[in-house]
C-alpha cells in the first residue's frame, strides 16, 4: 500500500483533525474475530495526545470493547456509540461506563415485536421466507436470506450478497431491497411506531427506535460541547455508497451539514461514494494508517485547523499600519484576569502589543491608570513586508491564529486560557529565523521590571500601585516549532512572589499543550452553552453579536472581585476606570449566563463600600455614595476638567453630580439576585448594599412644604444638561432603590426607618404628566429650545455638544442619550403603564446618541414598541461601533457597555425576557426579516434555551423552572390570533 502521506498530500485529509468518528466492522477491523491490538494502541495514543475518538456501530458493548479493549488515560476521550444509536459509553482507564441509553417502553417493545412479525408475514404472503433472528436493544432484525451459504458472509462478498438478496426478493415479486425496507417501514407504523428507523445491510432488515444517525447526532453534539466544530472531525467508514437503492449504513454518520464534514471511506464501495466522501480503499489497514498519520501530526505539534463556520470568526487580512491598533483591539484574547491584544507576533513599528491585568492600577486618584504588563507574544523576527498576512479569531474557542506568507513561513496559534485564567499559550511553526527569540517576555514600553531565571523559566516582575504582577514563562524551540507558555499572577494589594507564578507554570507545562488546549476549548464551549444567541436570517448580525458576546465573556473574572472598566481588558482607554457601564450594561449579561462573574463584579463594589460610606459622609449624607468613576481604591477618580474633541476646555462635573450611580449599583445587585435566586447574597452582602444605598437617598431627598420630595442639582444619563433638578431618571431610580430596599430589609432594620424610605419614595416627584403620558426629563426641560436632531444634523449619531456648542446644547432639548427612556428599559414597573410609546415618540427624535451606550437601549425599546425596522437598525449600529471604529477610539479598546447593550437589546428587547422573584417571563417581538431568534441563558442555576419563531415558541429548561410566556406557563407555544397559546402535544 502506498504511504498514506503520498495519498493524502494536498487533499482534505492532509491536516490535523480534532476528533475521529468511525465505524467499527469493516473500517477499524475486518471482522469481529480479528486482532485489534494495533487499533487499540493507536486509539490509546491518540487519546493521550488529546484527540477525541468515537466508534459508531450497530453491535453491542461486548463485541466492541471485547475486541478493542482500549483503556485510554486522556486528555482525549473515547466514546463507544453502540446498538445502532441506542447506547453511548465513555471509556476510561477503568473501562467503559454507560453515559446514555435509550430505554424502550413496554409499548414500544411490543410494537417492535409486532412490526417484525408483520414484516415477516407480509414477505411470506408472496412466498418469501424470512426469519426474525435477533431482538437487540430497541430493534428487531430480520434475515432476508436465511440460507446456509449466506449464514455469515464477510464484507468482501457484499456485492455477491446484494445480488443474491435482490434476486430472491424479485423472485417473490418485490422490487428489490428497497421494497423490502418499505414493507418493514409500513409494518412498523401500523404497529404504532410513528418514526421507525429501518435500515438494511443487504442480508438483514432492521426495524428500530434509533439508528446510527442518532449516534452521529449525539457525538457531534458532544464534540460541539467540547469546542469542536464538525469541520474539525474526520468521519471514517466503509459503506457510504448506496446499497440496493438504500443509503449506505455509514452515510448516517455524516453530520447534519454534510458539506462541512470531512469523510473518508476505506471500503470497496461497489456503487461509488457520495460526493462529500473521499475514497481511500484499503480497508482497516488504510484506516490504521490514517490513525497513525494523525498521531504523527499531533506529536509533531501540528496546529488545529480552524472551525469552518464564518459566523464564528473575525478575520483581518493583510497588515494596515494605519488601522493596526484597531485590529489589535478587535482581536484581543482575554480570560477575565489578563487581556492580550491581537497584535502580530513579529515586530512592526505600527504594532503595539499590550497585556493588561484586571484591577491592577498604577498611580492614584485621577491619574490611576491600568498597568501595562510584560508582553508574551513577541517573536524577534521582523514582520516581512508585502507578504500575505492573516489573523483569525475563533469566537467559539478563543483561539487566535496568525498566518504569514505561504503556509510554511509562519503560522501560530495563541490563546489565553479560560480554564486557568492568567495562563497563556503560543505555538508557532515556521522558518527558524522567525521563531528564534532572545527571551520569551518583553517589558511593556516605559515600564520598570525586575527579571531573572529560575528552573529554566524566565520571570519578570513589575510593580503597580501597592501591588504588581509577576510573569513566569518557558519556551521550547524544536526545529521549526516554538512552544511558549506564560503565567501571569497579578495582585493589586501586594507585589506577588515569583514562586506562585513558577508553580503555576510548572503545572501548566505538566499538562502540556494538548491538555491546555482541550481544557480551554471545553471551558469556552461551556460558556457558550449558556450564552449563545442565534439569529436565523441575518448572518452579518449573527457574527457581530457573537463578537460582542465573546468579548463580554472574556472581560470578567469569576473569582474574587472583577473590576470591569469601560474597555475591559481590550485596551487602555478610559484607564481601566469603572463606570455604570459595568453595573448596568455588562453585569446583567453575566448574571444571566455566568453568575459567578456577575458576583465578582458585585464583590468589587462591596469591597469598596467603606469608601462609598466615607464619600457620602464627605457630602454630609448617610449611607453609601459610590463614585461616578472608580479605580482601585473605590474613591472618585473623575477629573475636574478635560479637553473635548474640539479642543475646548470643559469642566467635568460628573464626579460631583452624577449620582444615579448609587441606584445603578443597587439595580445591578437586584438583577443578579433575580437571575440567580442567590439567597445568601440577597440576605447578606446584597442586603447591606440595598440598605446603604437607600440610606444615601433618604439623606439626599429634600421634602418641600407641600410634602413633595426633590433631588436637586444632579446630572442624569443625559450629560448635555448639568446640573439639573429632579432629573426623572435619578428620581425614579432612587424611588425604586428605596422601595426595593424597604422590601428586602423587612425585619432586618428598624421599622421606622423602613417606613421613612417608603414615605420618601412615595413623595419623590417624577415629572409625569398623566394627560400627555410624558415624563419631563428634569424640571424645566419643556422650557428649553425645542430642537430635535433633524434640526441640527442630517445624520445620527452626532456629537451635538461639539456641533452646537455646549451652551446652546444645554439650552435646548437635544439629549446625549436615553435618559427618561432608560427608565422604561431598566425599571419598566416603576413607570406608568403604556407610557413607553409617547415618551419614545417625544424623546427619541431629540436624542443625538452622543453616547455609544445609547443606540442599543433604543433598539431594545423600539423592539418593545413594535418598531422593528428601527430596532434592527439601532442594533446593527451598536454592533458596528467597534468593527467600523465609529468612535475613532477602538484602538484604545472595545466598548464593552455597548456590547452589553447589544445583549440586552436582544434578550430584553426582542426576546422580551424579564426575570423577577416569581420567575422568568417571555414576551417576544421577532423582526419580519428574521426566521428565528434563539437565546441561551441560565436562570436560577438551570440552563434555559428559548427558541422564538414567528408562529412558534419553544422553551427547554428544567421542569421546575418558573418560566412563562406572556404570563402563561408552558414549554411549547403557538400563535393564535396574535397571542401565544400553549401548543397541544
Amino acid at each position: 500500500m502506498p504511504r498514506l502521506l503520498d495519498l493524502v498530500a494536498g487533499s482534505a485529509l492532509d491536516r490535523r483533525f480534532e476528533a475521529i468518528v468511525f465505524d467499527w466492522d469493516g473500517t477499524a477491523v475486518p471482522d469481529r474475530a480479528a486482532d485489534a491490538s494495533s487499533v487499540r494502541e493507536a486509539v490509546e495514543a491518540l487519546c493521550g495526545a488529546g484527540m477525541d475518538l468515537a466508534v459508531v456501530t450497530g453491535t453491542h458493548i461486548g463485541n466492541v470493547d471485547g475486541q478493542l479493549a482500549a483503556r485510554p488515560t486522556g486528555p482525549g476521550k473515547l466514546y463507544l456509540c453502540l446498538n445502532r444509536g441506542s447506547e453511548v459509553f465513555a471509556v476510561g482507564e477503568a473501562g467503559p461506563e454507560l453515559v446514555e441509553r435509550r430505554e424502550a417502553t413496554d409499548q414500544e417493545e411490543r410494537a417492535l415485536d409486532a412490526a417484525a412479525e408483520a414484516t415477516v408475514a407480509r414477505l411470506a404472503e408472496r412466498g418469501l421466507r424470512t426469519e426474525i433472528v435477533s431482538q437487540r436493544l430497541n430493534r428487531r432484525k430480520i434475515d432476508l436470506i436465511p440460507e446456509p451459504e449466506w449464514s455469515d458472509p464477510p464484507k468482501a462478498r457484499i456485492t455477491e450478497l446484494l445480488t443474491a438478496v435482490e434476486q430472491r426478493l424479485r423472485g417473490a415479486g418485490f422490487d428489490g431491497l428497497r421494497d423490502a425496507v418499505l414493507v418493514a417501514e409500513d409494518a412498523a407504523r401500523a404497529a404504532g411506531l410513528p418514526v421507525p428507523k429501518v435500515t438494511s445491510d443487504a442480508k438483514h432488515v432492521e426495524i428500530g427506535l434509533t439508528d446510527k444517525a442518532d449516534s452521529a447526532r449525539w457525538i457531534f453534539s458532544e464534540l460541539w460541547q467540547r469546542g469542536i466544530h464538525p469541520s474539525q472531525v474526520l468521519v471514517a467508514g466503509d459503506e457510504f455508497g448506496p446499497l440496493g437503492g438504500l443509503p449506505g449504513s455509514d452515510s448516517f454518520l455524516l453530520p447534519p451539514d454534510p458539506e462541512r464534514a470531512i469523510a473518508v471511506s476505506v471500503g470497496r464501495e461497489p456503487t461509488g461514494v457520495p460526493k462529500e466522501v473521499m475514497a481511500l480503499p484499503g480497508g482497516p489497514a488504510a484506516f490504521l494508517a490514517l490513525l497513525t498519520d494523525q498521531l504523527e501530526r499531533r506529536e509533531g505539534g501540528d496546529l488545529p485547523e480552524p472551525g469552518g463556520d464564518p459566523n464564528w470568526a473575525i478575520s483581518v487580512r493583510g497588515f494596515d499600519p494605519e488601522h493596526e491598533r484597531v485590529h489589535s483591539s478587535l482581536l484581543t484574547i482575554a480570560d477575565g484576569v489578563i487581556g492580550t491584544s491581537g497584535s502580530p507576533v513579529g515586530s512592526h513599528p505600527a504594532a503595539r502589543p499590550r497585556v493588561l491585568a484586571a484591577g491592577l492600577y498604577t498611580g492614584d486618584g485621577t491619574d490611576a491608570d491600568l498597568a501595562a504588563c510584560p508582553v508574551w507574544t513577541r517573536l524577534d523576527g521582523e514582520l516581512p513586508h508585502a507578504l500575505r498576512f492573516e489573523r483569525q479569531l475563533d469566537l467559539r474557542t478563543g483561539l487566535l491564529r496568525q498566518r504569514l506568507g505561504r503556509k510554511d513561513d509562519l503560522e501560530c496559534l495563541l490563546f489565553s486560557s479560560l480554564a486557568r485564567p492568567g495562563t497563556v499559550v503560543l505555538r508557532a511553526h515556521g522558518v527558524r529565523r522567525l521563531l528564534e527569540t532572545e527571551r520569551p517576555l518583553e517589558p511593556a514600553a516605559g515600564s520598570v521590571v525586575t527579571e531573572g531565571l529560575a528552573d529554566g523559566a524566565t520571570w519578570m516582575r513589575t510593580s503597580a500601585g501597592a501591588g504588581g504582577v509577576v510573569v513566569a514563562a518557558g519556551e521550547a524551540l524544536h526545529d521549526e516549532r516554538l512552544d511558549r507558555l506564560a503565567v501571569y499572577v497579578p495582585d493589586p494589594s501586594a507585589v506577588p512572589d515569583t514562586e506562585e507564578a513558577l508553580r503555576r507554570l510548572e503545572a501548566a507545562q505538566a499538562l502540556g499543550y494538548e491538555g491546555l488546549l482541550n481544557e480551554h476549548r471545553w471551558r469556552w464551549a461551556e460558556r457558550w452553552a449558556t450564552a449563545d444567541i442565534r439569529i436565523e436570517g441575518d448572518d452579518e448580525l449573527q457574527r457581530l453579536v457573537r463578537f460582542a458576546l465573546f468579548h463580554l465573556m472574556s472581560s470578567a473574572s469569576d473569582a474574587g472581585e472583577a473590576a470591569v472598566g469601560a474597555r475591559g481588558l481590550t485596551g487602555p482607554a478610559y484607564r481601566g476606570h469603572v463606570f455604570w457601564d459595568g453595573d448596568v450594561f455588562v453585569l446583567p449579561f453575566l448574571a444571566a449566563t455566568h453568575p459567578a462573574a456577575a458576583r465578582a463584579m458585585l464583590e468589587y463594589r462591596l469591597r469598596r463600600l467603606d469608601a462609598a460610606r466615607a464619600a457620602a459622609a464627605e457630602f454630609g449624607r448617610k449611607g453609601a455614595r459610590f463614585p461616578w468613576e472608580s479605580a482601585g481604591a473605590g474613591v472618585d477618580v473623575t477629573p475636574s476638567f478635560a479637553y473635548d474633541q474640539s479642543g475646548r476646555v470643559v469642566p467635568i462635573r460628573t464626579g460631583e453630580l452624577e449620582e444615579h450611580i448609587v441606584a445603578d449599583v443597587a439595580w445591578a445587585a437586584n438583577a443578579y439576585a433575580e437571575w440567580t435566586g442567590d439567597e445568601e447574597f440577597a440576605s447578606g452582602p446584597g442586603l447591606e448594599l440595598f440598605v446603604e444605598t437607600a440610606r444615601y437617598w433618604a439623606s439626599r431627598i429634600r421634602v418641600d412644604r407641600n410634602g413633595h420630595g426633590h433631588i436637586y442639582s444632579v446630572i442624569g444619563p443625559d450629560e448635555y444638561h448639568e446640573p439639573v433638578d429632579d432629573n426623572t431618571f435619578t428620581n425614579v431610580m432612587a424611588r425604586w432603590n428605596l422601595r426595593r430596599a424597604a422590601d428586602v430589609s423587612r425585619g432586618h432594620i428598624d421599622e421606622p426607618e423602613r417606613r421613612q424610605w417608603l414615605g420618601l419614595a412615595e413623595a419623590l416627584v417624577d415629572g409625569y404628566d398623566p394627560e400627555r403620558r410624558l415624563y419631563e426629563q428634569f424640571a424645566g426641560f419643556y422650557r428649553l429650545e425645542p430642537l430635535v436632531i433633524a434640526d441640527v444634523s442630517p445624520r445620527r449619531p452626532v456629537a451635538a455638544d461639539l456641533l452646537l456648542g455646549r451652551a446652546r446644547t444645554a439650552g435646548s432639548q437635544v439629549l446625549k442619550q436615553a435618559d427618561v427612556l432608560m427608565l422604561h428599559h431598566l425599571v419598566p414597573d416603576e413607570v406608568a403603564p403604556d407610557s413607553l410609546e409617547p415618551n419614545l415618540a417625544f424623546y427619541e427624535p431629540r436624542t443625538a446618541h452622543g453616547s455609544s451606550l445609547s443606540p442599543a437601549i433604543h433598539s431594545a425599546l423600539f423592539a418593545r414598541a413594535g418598531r422593528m425596522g428601527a430596532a434592527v437598525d439601532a442594533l446593527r449600529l451598536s454592533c458596528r461601533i467597534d468593527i467600523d471604529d465609529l468612535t475613532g477610539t477602538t484602538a484604545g479598546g472595545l466598548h464593552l457597555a455597548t456590547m452589553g447593550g447589544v445583549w440586552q437589546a436582544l434578550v430584553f428587547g426582542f426576546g422580551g425576557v424579564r426575570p423577577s422573584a416569581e420567575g422568568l417571563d417571555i414576551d417576544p417581538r421577532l423582526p419580519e426579516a428574521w426566521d428565528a431568534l434563539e437565546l441561551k441563558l441560565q436562570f436560577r442555576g438551570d440552563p434555559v434555551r428559548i427558541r422564538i419563531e414567528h408562529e412558534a415558541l419553544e422553551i427547554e429548561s428544567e421542569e421546575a423552572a418558573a418560566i412563562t410566556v406572556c404570563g402563561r406557563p408552558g414549554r411549547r407555544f403557538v400563535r393564535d390570533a396574535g397571542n401565544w397559546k400553549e401548543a397541544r402535544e
Partner: protein
Amino acid sequence: MRKLIAALDNSLAAGSVLATADCLGSLFDAELEAVHVGEDHERIPSSEAEAAGVPLRRLTGSTVPALVQAGEADDVVALVLGTRRLPFGGRPIGTTAFEVITSLLKPVVMVAPDAPRPKAFRRVLVPLEGTLSTSLAPKGLIELARDATVDIVLLHVLDAVSLPPFTDQPQHEARAWCDEFVARHCPWGVGHVGLEVRLGRPEEQILAVASEVGADLIALGWAQELEAGRAPTVRHVLERGPTPVLLIPVHLPNEGQEERSKSWNSSRSLRA
C-alpha cells in the same frame, strides 16, 4: 553640507526672510546662503546679508527661473522667500512667490514682509488633514525637530462631517481619540508631538491656533496647485497670516480618492 537658500529682494521682506532662514538653518542643520537675482536693486539684500554675516550670491537671468534653478541644486534642502513685497494682510501672494512655489519641487518657506524676525524656532505648527499626503509631508521636519528640541504641535480641524459622533466621557474620549490620531497620522512623532483639535474652517483655525500656541512656523503639505479654487487653506494662510509657512510639496497617486476613505465616520448611521 546641506544648504538653505534665502531669496532676498529689494523689499521690506528681505530682513524677515533672512532671519527666518537663519533659524531654519539650525533646524535643518543646513548652511545658509542668501541670493539675489540681478545686479540692480540690491541695496537692501546686500545690507541685510552683510549685517547677518551671510554671503550673498548674485544670480543672473529671469527671477523665477533663476530661483527655481538655485533651489533645485542637490544640496539645497529648502528655499526661503517673501510672500509679497508689501505688508498688510489680505494681499494676494506675490507673482514671483506664486510661480516659485508652484514650480520648485522642494520645500519653500514663505515669509510675510511684516513677520517678526525670529531669533530661534521654538514651536512649529503642523496641520494634518488626516490624509496620507498631509501626514507624510512633514515627516522629515518632525524628525529633525525632535533632535533639535523644537516643539511640534499638530493641528487637526474637524468639520460637521468628520466630527466623531460620540463624545461619551470627554475626560477620556478626547485623549483616546487624539492618541490614535497621532499614532495613525504621525507615528514618527508619538511621544514627541502635541495635538490640538479644533472645529471649524481649517484656514481660520490654523491661523488662530498658530497665534494661540505661539508658533514660529507653520508647516503645510500641499500639491502645488494654486489655480482658482485650489488650495484654499494654503492661500488663506499665506494671505492672512504673519507666521512663516513651510510648504512641502507632496504628489501621491490617486490623491483625491483617499480623502473620504480617511473619514472617521462610517456611512452607517441612523437617519435623523
